[in-house]
């Protein structure tokens, strides 16, 4: 019997698998494919203070073993998310994590405060790293001082555990992780996308209307694993890992590198059943490599 349970601040996960923010909407679409109660948790799409229309289209492009996206935080705003989306997800036996974003520290605080009053939301994921927001998101994510500041403010605005989502577009990921740990973060999620671009040869212009987009998918997996491995050695808060996961072996690789749970984003698009498939395959893979539980595997590559 392989134990898949993992306990993290605010989250009792029946298994370590969840969809990554922005790749799963608010769950409705994938609920047509399978029972969301199978999932360890669901991370919702980013919520901002007001409704946002997002960027112009095209918003996505395929790349080698990856994709670029510049959705631009399109979302109906925190109030409608709380009133229309959370109740749907709350029907399922799974943890709910709200991803919060904003252009200003005040907006982050406001959104956090609203989710704080939402019974069925178990934890917050602080998206300080969305590369597609022009007004400031990117600075929060690449400057340790700003990251620290916004984390502190959100911690004050909320009693729910706060997981800070780190951007990989930095010279020193460990400095970022330490800064937000110091600010009181309960956990980290990493990594967000790397900023990239694809040109459309016929028009000689960037294919994505926003010009740049965030690179995700298997292409970035080695960067995610490296960053998690480095951060795991420097902080004492748990990490939810993500970036290119598409097989149960990948899940184990992230656990070994130091992740306590993992999120799957891009891989949902090619295979809407990827999450239940990985959940059912994980026990076999853990066993194959000598583990009888997820907990046992966490950080094994770091601690030996």
């Amino acid at each position, binding site marked *: 019997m392989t134990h898949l349970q993992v306990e993290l601040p605010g989250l009792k996960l029946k298994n370590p698998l969840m969809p990554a923010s922005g790749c799963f909407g608010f769950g*409705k679409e994938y609920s047509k494919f399978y029972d969301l109660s199978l999932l360890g948790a669901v991370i919702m799409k980013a919520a901002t203070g007001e409704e946002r229309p997002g960027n112009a289209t*095209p918003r996505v492009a395929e790349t080698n073993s990856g994709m670029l996206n510049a959705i631009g935080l399109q979302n109906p705003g925190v109030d409608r998310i709380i009133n229309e989306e959370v109740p749907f997800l709350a029907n399922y036996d799974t943890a709910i994590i709200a991803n919060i974003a904003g252009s200003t520290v005040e907006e982050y605080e406001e959104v956090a405060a609203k989710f704080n009053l939402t019974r069925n939301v178990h934890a917050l994921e602080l998206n300080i790293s969305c590369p597609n927001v022009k007004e400031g998101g990117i600075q929060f994510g690449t400057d340790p001082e700003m990251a620290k500041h916004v984390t502190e403010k959100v911690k004050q605005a909320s009693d729910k555990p706060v997981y800070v989502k780190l951007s990989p577009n930095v010279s020193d990921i460990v400095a970022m992780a330490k800064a937000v740990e110091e600010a009181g973060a309960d956990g980290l999620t990493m990594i967000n996308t790397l900023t990239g671009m694809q040109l459309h040869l016929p028009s000689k212009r960037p294919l994505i209307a926003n010009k740049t987009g965030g690179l995700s998918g298997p292409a970035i997996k080695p960067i995610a694993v490296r960053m998690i491995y480095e951060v795991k050695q420097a902080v004492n808060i748990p990490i939810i890992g993500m970036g290119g996961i598409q097989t149960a072996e990948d899940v184990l690789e992230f656990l070994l590198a130091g992740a306590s749970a993992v999120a799957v984003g891009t891989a949902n698009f090619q295979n809407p059943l990827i999450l239940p498939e990985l959940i059912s395959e994980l026990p076999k893979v853990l066993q194959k490599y000598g583990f009888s539980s997820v907990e046992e595997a966490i950080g094994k590559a770091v601690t030996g």
Partner: protein
Amino acid sequence: MRKIKMRLLQIREIAKDTIEMKLEDDYITKVANPGQFISIALPNHTLPRPISIADIDRENGEITLLFKIMGKGTDTLAGFIPGTEVDCFGPNGNGFPLDSGQVDKVLLIGGGIGVPPLYYLGKRLEEQGIEVKSILGFQSGKYVFYEKKFESLGETIIVTDDGSYGMKGFVTDAVNIIPGFDAYYACGPTGMLRALTEQMKNKTGYISLEERMGCTVGACAACVIPTATEGSYKKICHDGPVFAAEEVML
């Protein structure tokens, strides 16, 4: 909506760079409506390819797809051999409205690789006793396909950009020739749809749109289109691909 494997039965080039595939399937054929599409997951790709349902043979559990070779993905797909199990999911999207009631005569207007979904639509409309006429536009003669099939549904005008086959011009030029129809159904490049909806402002029309997609199921917000209501967006993969002509801003 399900994830399924469809066995490829037959594949052939029916016009330049234009491939017709027949696949065995006992789920989509039962539930899909004209205008819906399926998503094809290709090995070594990260995004699924949305392809419209061109025809369905419910009795034999056979689905027809038509696609044009446009890039790496469709090129790979074109190389599949009969017997291949193709990873798909769907049916996705809403499809064309079939039971509008007061419609007696409809006009189908297709441009290039926008033609395929109109064929299954035409067949289903004709089954309901509705009179179907079609205008199909192509770049040039060598890209023309399914002329006979559309003719079996009703009067069909072929238009080519260069006049190498049928009438020279655009589908918008041909629309005036067809008198009296209650509604039009169109699918094709955005430019064509823009011109068309402008030209037929006071007609009831339904148009099927395309956009680059991520999830193809409504979860990622990649494929939005602004609606006529200021600041509001719809997801083409989920709320479309078919929209009432006046509903969206092209």
